[in-house]
């Protein structure tokens, strides 16, 4: 729930930021402000290298449907603006099959001289936050604690786990008559938003009860981010330009979810806590898609 609140706050801040800058752009003196709107569909593939179950739970093994590769489709709405020449601020809201704008990306790019044709160099800072489903992590206990009622909570154990990544990338851009190209790649840092979960157990034909509480940590990990954007201009009317937008991006990292595990047996006072740091799993996110854009 806290993660959801953070997302909401971030969206609100993004909205306030873009709104205030937008107002500033509208009252600017140089008259060079441009805005862009875009919509595109993309396919996303998330790969991770699952690890064999050990004596402690590894939440990474329960991301998605438990398979090494997960795929999904997204509808992306892009709003961007250039408040001053060379600077671009853009926000992307992505909607998945649940039709909830659960993912966002905010980026700030500095590309001096990008209104001129030819090659340009600059940099880009990007913050992306997207949800990942953590499904049926209680299977670990059902398999390990077979002599107990391994989970007294019979609901489908699913929660949203937000993954946030901040990256800083050098950008190489080419602006032609009909085609513009941007390529960026660079390092970043990714964290999973912390969460807590509890498993309640009881012995059949016995009074024995215990609870296992997991409180995860942000577990930061180094990330290699890369993205490519291609704009193909199809029409230009006065100051309005529109066309096709092609986008592809990737995030590569070794991820883990560290946590504190507290086992309470019989009573709350009888507790033992330990920190668990599962091994890092290679994880990659690849996304590619295309759509339309309008600059005005």
């Amino acid at each position: 729930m806290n993660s959801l609140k953070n997302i909401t706050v971030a969206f609100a801040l993004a909205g306030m930021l873009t709104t205030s800058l937008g107002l500033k752009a509208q009252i600017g003196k140089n008259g060079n402000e441009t805005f862009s709107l875009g919509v595109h569909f993309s396919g996303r593939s998330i790969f991770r290298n699952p690890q064999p179950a050990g004596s402690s739970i590894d939440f990474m093994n329960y991301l998605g449907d438990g398979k090494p590769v997960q795929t999904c489709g997204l509808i992306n709405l892009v709003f961007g603006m250039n408040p001053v020449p060379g600077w671009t601020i853009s926000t992307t809201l992505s909607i998945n099959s649940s039709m909830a704008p659960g993912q966002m990306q905010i980026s700030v790019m500095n590309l001096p001289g990008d209104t001129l044709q030819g090659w340009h160099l600059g940099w880009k800072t990007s913050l992306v936050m997207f949800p990942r489903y953590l499904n049926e992590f209680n299977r670990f206990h059902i398999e390990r604690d077979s002599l107990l009622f391994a989970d007294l909570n019979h609901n489908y154990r699913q929660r949203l786990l937000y993954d946030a990544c901040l990256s800083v990338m050098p950008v190489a851009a080419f602006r032609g008559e009909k085609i513009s190209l941007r390529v960026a790649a660079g390092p970043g840092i990714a964290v999973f938003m912390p969460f807590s979960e509890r498993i309640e157990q009881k012995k059949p034909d016995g009074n024995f009860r215990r609870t296992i509480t997991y409180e995860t940590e942000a577990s930061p990990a180094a990330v290699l981010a890369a993205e490519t954007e291609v704009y193909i201009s199809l029409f230009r009317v006065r100051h309005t330009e529109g066309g096709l937008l092609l986008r592809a991006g990737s995030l590569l990292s070794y991820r883990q979810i560290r946590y504190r595990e507290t086992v309470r047996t019989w009573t709350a006072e009888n507790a033992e806590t330990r920190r668990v740091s599962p091994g890092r799993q290679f994880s990659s996110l690849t996304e590619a898609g295309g759509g339309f854009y309008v600059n005005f």
Partner: protein
Amino acid sequence: MRTFRKLLTVIILFNAARIFTSCCECDETPVRFTFRSIDVRNLDNKGEWAIVTASNNMAPEAVAFEVSLFDSTGYFGYAALQKALLPGFSKAMAFRCDCSIPFQATSYPESIVIKTFFAINDTIQAGADVTGCFVARSSGNGTISGLYQSVESVFSLARDKIYYDSGVETVQLFLMPEIKTDKAKFEISVRLSDGRILSGNTQTINIRQQ
């Protein structure tokens, strides 16, 4: 326009009147009562949750009881009386304005002593004080879900407690060690703050050895 405003005023006043009349001031003054009786019932704790049972058979690791303290003229007593004397529909009782009646005991349970009639294992012999071998749960008191509390902490929650709709203090007791013999029976004594002691015995439990 004027007609519309008048109509709106009438509708608002009508609804406001409804809101005022639907509000009800409940009398929060507690009705005092005294714990005079104790009842001990068996719990079936073989499954995921404990339920009251009339069976005297229990698993050696699932010995559990429910202890209830109540005023002999409390609702607990009335319920038993109605069932015995009035066939057919039982008497319907409604609280005015849907107010729950707050009850407060004149004395509260201060401590509990549990003694065993039979040996539990080689180290716990017949007649021993086995209070420390039990953990407890109290209905209606905040606790970490799924876990038990110590017997002392459950009874400490009963001090100055306000009971709504029923002046019954119910505590579930769960034995921690496994019973190694084939029978079990306990005497449960609750000492109240006014010095009185309410005692009750469990049934003789047949331990189903596995």
